[in-house]
């Protein structure tokens, strides 16, 4: 992560690091495997007090960045989550909080207040089956206006923490445009069915919306005109997923490097074998590359730089491909013990693998990059 965080960023990071160290040992993460929600409400509320959900929300609405750039601040938290494979809906709660408090989003201050305090949770119903996350225009979910109401039909999957959420921000199409709607849990026509995932604590669901009706005021942004906002949310999600994955990469790398010093084979520490030394060197280059590009993408997105879209996709593609390879190399160096349930390594392997698959796979982002390159050529 950031080479030179500001003092306020450092203290934000430190309080989260300390809190997680206190309450979220790897033993605890393992225990949460059997927890239906994957995290306890109290854990989340305390985290919210440390700023976990406020960084993308403007000060006027009770939030605020500790630097100029809330997204950059938030990547520091996400990185700490990765370092501990910590549970909780960090990514979707922040994306929704940010979206609801954005300019032109409409008045959703009550919901935002709940998210800020950690008393409630919200998630983003964005992805669909067999639709590349990088191509929102291809989504099938429909939102249509009927009088004072909006009617939503579609199936969203996977939706993180959907069953644990008080509200879902649903993205769908209205004609050729995109629309975002805030739907409260329990709204008639909304059904949530649990899915399985490679992660131990993150919970996902398939969300079906059949003729779900909400008042027009539930729209977040303009009906049929939310494309730019959706893209921004998507890129924020991509960067947060990367930041978390980089944290997990760092933890796994550090653990593995230490292991190569401690572990002897044929009278020598593993760290003395050139084949493994060179593997570690490659991993180090991937790790630093992952840090570098994720930080660059966060900064670009926070400052609305012209290459933000490309950097986000470059980061997601790189971290997805090389993060997974790095983790698997860590497993290989550990040997069989690295894939036992009682070892910590798989917690990170799971987190990195999960983040690789969601918010656009490396392959999908590579295609998006090519499209961006073509557009640049045309411009």
């Amino acid at each position: 992560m950031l080479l030179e965080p500001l003092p306020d960023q450092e203290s934000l990071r430190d309080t989260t690091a300390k809190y997680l160290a206190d309450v979220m040992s790897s033993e605890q993460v393992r225990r949460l495997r059997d927890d239906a929600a994957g995290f306890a409400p109290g854990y989340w509320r305390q985290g919210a007090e440390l700023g976990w959900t406020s960084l993308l929300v403007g000060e006027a609405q009770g939030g605020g960045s500790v630097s100029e750039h809330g997204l950059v601040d938030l990547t520091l938290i996400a990185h700490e989550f990765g370092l501990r494979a910590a549970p909780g809906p960090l990514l979707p709660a922040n994306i929704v909080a940010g979206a609801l408090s954005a300019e032109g989003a409409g008045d959703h201050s009550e919901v935002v207040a709940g998210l800020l305090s950690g008393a409630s949770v919200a998630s983003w119903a964005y992805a669909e089956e067999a639709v590349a996350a990088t191509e929102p225009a291809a989504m099938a979910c429909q939102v249509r206006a009927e009088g004072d109401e909006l009617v939503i039909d579609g199936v969203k999957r996977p939706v993180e923490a959907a069953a644990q959420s008080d509200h879902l921000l649903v993205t769908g199409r209205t004609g050729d445009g995109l629309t975002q709607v805030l739907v409260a849990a329990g709204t008639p026509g909304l059904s949530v069915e649990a899915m399985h995932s490679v992660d131990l604590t993150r919970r996902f669901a398939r969300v079906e919306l059949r003729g779900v009706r909400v008042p027009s005021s539930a729209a977040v942004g303009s009906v049929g005109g939310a494309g730019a906002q959706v893209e921004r949310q998507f890129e924020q999600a991509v960067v947060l997923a990367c930041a978390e994955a980089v944290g997990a990469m760092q933890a796994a790398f550090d653990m593995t490097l230490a292991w190569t010093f401690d572990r002897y084979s044929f009278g020598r520490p593993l760290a003395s074998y050139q084949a493994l030394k060179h593997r570690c060197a490659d991993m180090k280059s991937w790790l630093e590359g992952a840090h570098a590009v994720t930080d660059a993408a966060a900064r670009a997105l926070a400052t609305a730089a012209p290459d933000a879209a490309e950097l986000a996709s470059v980061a997601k593609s790189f971290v997805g491909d090389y993060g997974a390879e790095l983790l698997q190399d860590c497993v290989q160096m550990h040997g069989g013990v690295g894939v036992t349930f009682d070892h910590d390594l798989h917690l990170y392997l799971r987190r990195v693998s999960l983040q690789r698959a969601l918010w656009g796979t490396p392959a999908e982002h590579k295609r998006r990059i090519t499209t961006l390159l073509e557009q640049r050529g045309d411009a």
Partner: protein
Amino acid sequence: MATTEAEDLDDFRERARKWVTANLRPGGAERAGLRGSTDEEAELAAVAREREVQRAMFDAGFAGICFPKEYGGQGLPPAYQGAFNEALAGYEYPGRLQVPTLSPCAAVLLEFGTEEQKRQHIPAMLKGEELWMQLLSEPGGGSDVAGATTTAMRDGEEWILNGSKIWTTGAWWSDWGLCLTRTNWDLPKHRGLTVFILPLRQPGLDVHRIEMLNGSREFCQEFLSDVRVPDTDRVGDVDDGWTVGTRWMFHERMLYNSPLVSFPAGAGNAAGGPDLLGIARSAGVLGDVAMRERVGEGRVLDVVGNCLQDRVGAAVRSRQMSDQAAAIVRLFKGISAARTRTLGYEIAGAAGGVWADGDGASADAGVDFLMRQTACIGGGTTEMARNVISERVLGMPREPAVGRDLPYRDVPRSATSRR
């Protein structure tokens, strides 16, 4: 027994074919390698069924086809085992009783066991009464098998064993084990080892099932606390266990070329990899040429791996390559198994990371991906295979081993295995 001295190969083949068809269930290698089974009862039932099948094979004269008659075998040449393997193709077979029971365990007993040991155990193995395991790897040892620190101390006509072994498949449903121990810490590493036979169900021997990240609990760790073994259960000479161990490793390498084990012809070539075409279909990306390339790449690796195995097997049999060349196949198949699981995860896309009940083949892609390195670890790491290939096959200089001539107690070891 139906066999007669005079039965020729064709008659044998025909009889084998008929017997297999009439007595065995269609199926084959159904053991879930990477995905593991979490169902204990099903596992025990499968073990019981294999014992039954082995017994039926024995009764029909198809067990131990190349084992000496005096130990319950058939005393026939390898071609007969080959013919039986062909008959087995597509049918269930008692895999757990072949490997490691018949090879390397029985193979080691045949070479180094006392007459009594052979008479006691080999017929029982061939009848499916004794399931054997290899107590070889240790928690602090990794690939360095000869670095065993499980200690056997002599006490009159007995030995007292202390230590721990790990990565024993199914020790919890097995009966006996071959155990490599250190009997002399004052000699260099390879010169203070001794091999023992020991029953796995006895006081002082605690079998702990290891849970893997995918929930599988097929591997075990054994803790030995003052386990007493009579000297008559020693295999080979005292402190000469590495002579036994070297052959033990040899039999491990040669498994698919061994006439001592029965396995359906082609089973060694079974792809066993993920069904990439199925994953592509269930993920809805069969029309995407980039995903079609990945499906094709997986198939390339599977097919080449099989061709390579055939080539190396033939070359080893004809002595154009040494048996160390088996490491070439091991390396290739390990790397390609890891790669095909990565391909599966890529093809599955988001559905690989998060899946719903009823998703089809893509639902397995995620956990298969998490477990992918097991193909490069189990049965000797790919790193060890690369060492063997470079040093033993290509003749490149050996890695400097620290303290090859030091008393083993003075050789640096992992903290966990220091004593």
